[in-house]
Every structure is written in structure tokens, then in C-alpha cells.
């Protein structure tokens, strides 16, 4: 090799050209999968659910005009929060149930896992995408509900002020206070957060079921059963732990229900909040922690089973 050859062929050292060492955990990889999952779900037009929710809200608020303001606000809050609960639960189950089977059918999962992406990052990214979708949907529905409630409250306040224009000021103030007390209640916000956490739990559980399920339909059907059994878990648990009657088969069945299924009734606090029950910080924190605990455990189990899945 001559000096001339050296000058023309040898390049200066560039550190950026050296391939980076593969990291076992990468937040950016998870975020990429999350954003991709969210985009996929958005393309499925799942946000049409919000349109249905809006129509339900407007429809119910027009229909309720014939009731007294207490009845109107009671029904508006019940219907809206019930709809938020129903839509988030449905979204959680349906959106998650089709996630893994679709990726396997489309062979997207092979493309992703052929790259240096660990399976747990794939699963965590996927579930984070669904949770983000649920968070956006819950926020939009809650905002729409609050806006309608506020508008109705203002309309009732104006009507009351007009009707009682000639009443003494303290009576008018009492009447306006009664209207305000029937409308917005700050405890509704923790109630909505608990609804969201219930949807997170259902998402993680659906993901876990879908890791060993054979089809989307199977996952959805199993989740519907789990949904009902989960609402009965508290009854089964109490009967199993306190009642001493019943045959062996009954007791084994109750034990299975109590041990394997989450207590979904624990997350149905919003009905009582609308009824005026005050939610204490202890109740909110413990319920929220239970929801987070379930979500984390079911996600970890989903990761564990997915690691052993033959693709």
C-alpha cells in the first residue's frame, strides 16, 4: 500500500457509524408501538362512540326538560356516567381483544419482533396505546358531560331567578343554592377516574385472555362472562367465606370465582356519588390502588404468557 492509496481509501474515524449496542429496555421503542397502536385504533373510527355519547347527552337533556330540575339533573348524571362506564368498558374489551389476533393475521407482529424488540416491550406498547385511547375518550366524554350539565344548570338558574324575581333575597339565594347543589358535585371527578381505572383493568385482563385465546370472538365472549362474574365476585366471596352451608361443589365453585376473578363491583361507586354519597380520600385511594394493582398484574401475566406463545 502506497501513501497515495492511504490518502484516498482511509476515511477519518466516525463514531456514529458504529452500530449502537442493543438496549434491553427502550422507552422510545415502547412509545413508537404505543403511538402506532393509537393511530390504528383511531383509523378504526372508534371515536364514533363519542358521537353516540354526544347524541345521547343532547337527546336526554332535551327529553328531561319535562321533569323538575332535581329529577332532570339526577337522570342526566346517571345516564351520562352510565354511558361513560359502558362505552369505556366496551372500548377496553373490543379494542384489546382484536389487537393481538389482528397483528398475527396481518403478520405485523413478525415484522416487529424480527427487529430487536423484546416481547414485553411489544405487549406494554400495545396496552399503553389502548389505555391512551381510553384516557382520551374518557376525557372527551367527561368534558362533554360537564359542559351539558353546566349549560342546563345555567338555564335552570336563569329560569329560577326570573320566576322568583319578586321573592325576598334570602329565599332567592336559597333557591339558587338548591339548584347549584343538585347540579355539579366535585365528587363526580374521582368517580370518573374510578370508571377509567375499571376500563384499564378490563383492558389488561382482555390482553391476558387474548394471549392464549384462539380468536377475537373467543376473547370477547370470555370477557363478557368475566364482566358478569366479576360483578358477582363480592357476593360469591362473602358467601364462600362466611356461609357454612352448601355442598363441596358449590364451595369449590365459589372459591374459584372469589380467587380468580376481580371484584368489579368495587369500581361502581359513581351511582352512589350521584346520589350524594361523599367519596372520602381513603375510599378513592384504596379503590384506585386496587385498580392499578389488577392492571399491572394482568399486564405482567399477559407478557409472561406471550413470551411462551409460538408465533
Amino acid at each position: 500500500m502506497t501513501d497515495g492509496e492511504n490518502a484516498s481509501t482511509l476515511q477519518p474515524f466516525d463514531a456514529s457509524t458504529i452500530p449502537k449496542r442493543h438496549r434491553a429496555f427502550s422507552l422510545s421503542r415502547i412509545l413508537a408501538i404505543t403511538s402506532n397502536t393509537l393511530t390504528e385504533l383511531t383509523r378504526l373510527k372508534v371515536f364514533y362512540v363519542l358521537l353516540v355519547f354526544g347524541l345521547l347527552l343532547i337527546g336526554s337533556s332535551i327529553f328531561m326538560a319535562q321533569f323538575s330540575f332535581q329529577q332532570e339533573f339526577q337522570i342526566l348524571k346517571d345516564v351520562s356516567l352510565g354511558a361513560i362506564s359502558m362505552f369505556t368498558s366496551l372500548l377496553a374489551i373490543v379494542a384489546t381483544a382484536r389487537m393481538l389476533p389482528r397483528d398475527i393475521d396481518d403478520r405485523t407482529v413478525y415484522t416487529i419482533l424480527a427487529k430487536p424488540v423484546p416481547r414485553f416491550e411489544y405487549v406494554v406498547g400495545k396496552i399503553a396505546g389502548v389505555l391512551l385511547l381510553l384516557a382520551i375518550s374518557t376525557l372527551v366524554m367527561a368534558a362533554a358531560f360537564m359542559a351539558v350539565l353546566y349549560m342546563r344548570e345555567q338555564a335552570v338558574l336563569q329560569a329560577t331567578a326570573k320566576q322568583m324575581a319578586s321573592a325576598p333575597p334570602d329565599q332567592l339565594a336559597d333557591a339558587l343554592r338548591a339548584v347549584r347543589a343538585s347540579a355539579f358535585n366535585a365528587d363526580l371527578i374521582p368517580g370518573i377516574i374510578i370508571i377509567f381505572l375499571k376500563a384499564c383493568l378490563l383492558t389488561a385482563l382482555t390482553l391476558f385472555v387474548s394471549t392464549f385465546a384462539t380468536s377475537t370472538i373467543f376473547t370477547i365472549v370470555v370477557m363478557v362472562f368475566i364482566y358478569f362474574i366479576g360483578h358477582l365476585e363480592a357476593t360469591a366471596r362473602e358467601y364462600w367465606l362466611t356461609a357454612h352451608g352448601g355442598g363441596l361443589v358449590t364451595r369449590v365453585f365459589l372459591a374459584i370465582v372469589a380467587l380468580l376473578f376481580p371484584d368489579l363491583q368495587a369500581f361502581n361507586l359513581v351511582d352512589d356519588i350521584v346520589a350524594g354519597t361523599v367519596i372520602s380520600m381513603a375510599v378513592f385511594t384504596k379503590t384506585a390502588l386496587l385498580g392499578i394493582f389488577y392492571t399491572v398484574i394482568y399486564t405482567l401475566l399477559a407478557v409472561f404468557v406471550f413470551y411462551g406463545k409460538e408465533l
Partner: protein
Amino acid sequence: MTRGLIALAVLIVMGLLKLPVERDLAALHRQEHFRGVEFNLDLREKIGQLGFIAALSGFRAIVADALFIQAHAAWENTQWGRMLLLFRQITALQPRVLLFWDTAAWHMAWNASVAAMNDTNQPRQALRVKAQREYFALGKDFLERGIKNNPDRPELYEALARLYKEKYKDHERTAEYYAKAATLPEAAPWDRRFSAYELSYCEGREREAYERLRSLYDEGQKERLPTLIKRLNFLEDKLAIPADQRIPDRLIKP
């Protein structure tokens, strides 16, 4: 397969760990008036299969509202029997909603009872009065059960006091329920006053009524309302209170 079995084992271990946590949380919920509805055969019989399933799925408020709208329609058609059945279902589903207990009692004790009294299909007045009394009792029953489910809130005690006053003309019971309402947080400021007014009509309890009214009067100008002064004047005369101990205000002639 092995992973599936390990996952199942983890679920069982987790189940054993979560059991006491869930039980404690359920107890805390009940202590703070959540989970007031027991899902048992009694509720199933009251609300029917579909309603029970919906309620079991966490949508009992919506089911109760749907039934409430039906009850409203039944009221417009003066179907009192149907209304009674519907309100029993509604209150079984939502025992913490005061509005439902109050509305049910109002429909029974005020609307249905008046309709029974004015029933042109029943020529015998004795039977009309009997039907009217039965509707009063139904209204009272709703309020009493409502209070049993919501002992911490004053509104239903006030409603029951109104029912005793307007329908049974029972001053003693009226005073008792206004007094009970007055002891609860968020009670209306007039509950104590109303209780004392009603007590002032009770034979043999004038001294107690006088002391309570006088104590309210001594609290200051805000409590010195015309009715309170009138009732005090009346009791001062009846109890022959010495002139130097009487209040300076006078709204009824001695």
C-alpha cells in the same frame, strides 16, 4: 402449557393475597354508604330478570332512571298501582337517592290519596276514606324505609315530618321528626324552629315547647320571627309565665 399453569398458579396466589384487601375495601365502602344494594333473590323478584342483569352489570342507576320515567308516565295516566310497583323497584335499586323516596312518598300520600278521595267510581265515602288512609300509609312507609337506608341525611326526616303534619295532623310526631332532622349535618336552619312550633300544639308538652322556643328567641334577632313570637306569646299566657320573665315582643293580645 407450562406457562399457562404457572399463570394460573400466580392468579390463585394473587387471589389469596387480594381476598383480605377486597374484603376490607368492601367493608369500607359499606361503612361509607357505597354498595348499599344486596344482589339477592329478593331484588331479582322485584326488578325482573333483565333489570337484575343490567343492575348486576353496574348499570343500576340507568335501570332505575328508566323505571322512574315509566313511573312518571304512569302518574300522567293516574295508574297508581303501577306507580307503587315501579317506585318499589326504583327504591330497591337506588336506595341512596333521596329524590326517589321523596317523590314516591309524595305521589302516594298527596296525589294518589287525593285521587282516591275524589274517586267518582266509589260511591261509599267510608271506602274512599279507607283508600285515602292506605295511600297515606304507603307514603309513610316509603319515607320510613328511605330513612332506614339514609339515616345520615335530614331531607327524608323533614319530608316525614311534613307528612305527619299535613296528612295525619299529628303535631307530636311532626315535632319529633323535625327534631331528628335538626340533629343531622346539613339540616335546614328552620328544622329546630318547626320542631318547637309543632311541640307547642301538643297537650301536656307546653313547658318543654316554651323552653325550646325561648331558647331560640334568646339566640338573637335572626330567630325572632312572627310565628315564633306568636307561639311564645300563646305559651306564656297558657303557662302563666310571670310578666317580668316574658319576652318584650307581643303579637297576640293577652
